[in-house]
């Protein structure tokens, strides 16, 4: 018999593994340049990981249900652009209104994806590959229709920019937002029926239907929530960078998926945690920051992200093969 906790602890081990990798990267970078671990350095590491971490939380919800959303980069671009446009219309708009508008638009995009996946039964990979281009196209069309190629910081209120660059008790605002979302999502996934049902759907979709789980509704909701988080990410991006054009977020989808997979969320659903996904995002952004310090030219960055992804997937695969072998061996022992 395998011990009750052996698999769970193996996955806790996964999160531990990311932390170990993270420490290794940080130590190496700090030896090369001690300021890497200064107060400002840590501040920057967390800030860099905040937006992608937020996107990874939403993506993890979908991957757990055996789905995926490739349109996150485009949705993020669209909502970032929306927040800029709203301030162009009325610079005195309350910040909260813009934040809610961004979340709302993101949720609508998520609902479109979710409806096509859950109701029209089109595979998520295909649906979101399509909407990746559609949402980006809308973004560009909007920019050209309003003849605004770029929206700059001076066109936005200071209160909004403070949201992006400010901090509370030394922790950047954006990091706080991501941590709060992470805490709520992790708690809900663990403690509410709907959360466990997302795992059930990803673990065995047919069994989930037989167990009477409303799989379509759950998957749809996951897309809407993930879309809302991406919308929030878009607004955060606008507030942080203060410069927005129609190509914000291009290509981010792959980084987000990589973070989720590196973070130990099984790509075929059913297992993994949002904490792992956020740690995956933190690891990848930290590697990116550390590369130039370690003397690796910046253009290697993508290759290193890809390599991290491959290492993570190979480790998962090796783990599953070992588990299967152990189970086979156990059965052989029981028979003998």
């Amino acid at each position: 018999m395998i011990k009750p906790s052996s698999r769970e602890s193996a996955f806790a081990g996964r999160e531990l593994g990311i932390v170990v990798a993270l420490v290794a990267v940080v130590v190496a970078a700090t030896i090369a340049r001690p300021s890497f671990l200064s107060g400002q350095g840590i501040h920057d590491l967390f800030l860099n990981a905040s937006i992608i971490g937020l996107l990874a939380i939403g993506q993890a919800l979908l991957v757990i249900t055996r789905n995926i959303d490739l349109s996150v980069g485009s949705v993020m671009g669209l909502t970032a652009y929306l927040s800029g446009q709203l301030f162009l219309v009325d610079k005195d708009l309350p910040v909260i209104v813009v934040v809610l508008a961004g979340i709302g638009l993101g949720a609508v995009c998520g609902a479109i994806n979710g409806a096509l996946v859950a109701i029209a039964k089109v595979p998520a990979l295909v649906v979101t590959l399509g909407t990746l281009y559609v949402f980006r196209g809308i973004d560009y069309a909007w920019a050209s229709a309003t003849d605004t190629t770029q929206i700059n910081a001076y066109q936005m209120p200071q209160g909004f920019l403070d949201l992006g660059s400010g901090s509370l008790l030394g922790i950047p605002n954006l990091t706080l937002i991501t941590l709060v979302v992470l805490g709520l999502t992790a708690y809900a996934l663990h403690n509410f029926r709907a959360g466990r049902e997302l795992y059930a759907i990803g673990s065995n979709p047919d069994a989930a239907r037989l167990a009477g789980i409303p799989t379509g509704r759950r998957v749809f909701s996951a897309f809407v929530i993930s879309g809302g988080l991406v919308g929030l990410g878009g607004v955060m991006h606008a507030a942080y960078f203060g410069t927005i054009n129609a190509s914000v977020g291009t290509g981010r989808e792959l980084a987000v998926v990589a973070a989720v997979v590196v973070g130990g969320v099984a790509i075929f659903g059913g297992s993994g945690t949002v904490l792992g996904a956020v740690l995956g995002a933190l690891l990848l952004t930290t590697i990116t920051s550390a590369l130039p310090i370690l003397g690796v030219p910046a253009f290697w960055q993508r290759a290193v992200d890809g390599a991290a992804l491959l290492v993570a997937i190979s480790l998962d695969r090796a783990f599953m093969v070992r588990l299967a072998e152990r189970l086979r061996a156990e059965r052989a022992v029981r028979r003998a």
Partner: protein
Amino acid sequence: MQAVSALTAKVPPLLELRDVHKSFAAVHALRGVSLALHPGEVHGLAGENGAGKSTVVRVIGGEHRPDSGVVLVDDAPVGFSGPRDAQRHGIAVIHQEPTQFPDLTVAENVFMGRQPVRSFRRIDRASMNAKAAELFESLGVPIDPWRVTRGLSIADQQIIEIGKALSAEARIIVMDEPTAALSTVETERLFRVAKRLAENGAALLFISHRLEEMYEICHRVTVLRDGALVTSSPMADIDRDTLVRSMVGRSVEQLYPEQTGEAGAEALVVAGLTRAGVFADVSFSVRRGEIVGLAGLVGSGRSEVARAIFGVDPLDAGQVLVDGERLPLGDPRAAIRAGVAMVPEDRREQGLILDLSIERNATLPRLGAVSRWGLVSRAKERSLAAKWADRLGVKRRRLTDPVATLSGGNQQKVVLGKWLATEPGVLIVDEPTRGIDIGAKVEVHALLAELAASGIAVLMISSELPEVLGMADRVLVMHEGRLTEELSKEDATEESVLQAATGGAS
């Protein structure tokens, strides 16, 4: 048993089907089936494959809606909107291959969708695990509620399904061939649980291919044939022969052709085949002109042995000789070159490309023979396909029709034809007649006999005992990964094979 039958005459049934009809496209799966399940009673449902048993299960479980007729629970007509609705009416279905969430814990599998909750509708894990532990305790089968279900045996998974049914307070429990993959000990354990459920007032519908089990546990039996109800009677009032006759509708002998082949030289010899945890030390031989049946329960390793011989699955030890030549292990191309052909268990998944035309499917392993300079010649392809389709009597409109448009029996003939076109010396067939109608079965059987007579060595794997007994010159029986028995045609009876297959022999 008598007492219970007398009792049920007065107690109203928990569930009743009245004149239920159900069709799928052209197939009339159920034609007017009526059935009543009483509390405290185990009701057997018998019939051959394709008789409509699974459809009855799906109608009761809320997966299918009947086209006409009614389902009544507690004498009130119900129209289930889906599985959950059926569950709400106290119905639980335990499938042959339980459907679980391998990544989740045992307790979560039991309580999915119905987890005990505390304040703010949060899941109460402590109470959930305690309840699950209590449940398995009461069933007399301790299973750790905290472990994930991945890797549990099918027997344990079924117990989890039963736990699920009990925790949902199901009163109507359907068991669809639950014993097909169980050992004798596991079957006894399941029966103890099932009897206890009935004593506590549940109504059970029990499906099995093993008639002994029916006599052991059922109070009443209903027989289906070709979707229609043949008979329904107290188990004590129906003898074995009558039961078999009502299931088959004709005497079994007529289904199987006369064997004429003379056994020749050994064409296939396997020695000491071992794959850790799957099968161990399997040795046997098949002669030219001989049909050897490989019997055993689902999960005994039969198909795995066949796959390993053909080189699809890896081997830890052992060797395979074809016509005295040693085959390199794990290389299907070498096996094909040496003259081995394998018709896999699942023709839809592994044997055919359903969307391709009949001719394309038929010539797939023989593209070399119909090509010139790497380009496939349509004319040669067509003539080769036509030759085999005619020889096998494939009923089709055009050779260019997709294989998906054919009936199951004709699809199987295309798979056979596809491999026969490679002119094999050794033919391995896995479940050659699963899910095809009785007429097509007879044709496939005749074909296999003819092939053996022409000097091909045939290894036939089948879960249908009558098929093994009717076709094979020799019967090999596997039990839990080991070859436990070899029986000549004379010695092979349903009893002797089942004994060996369930570990009763030796």
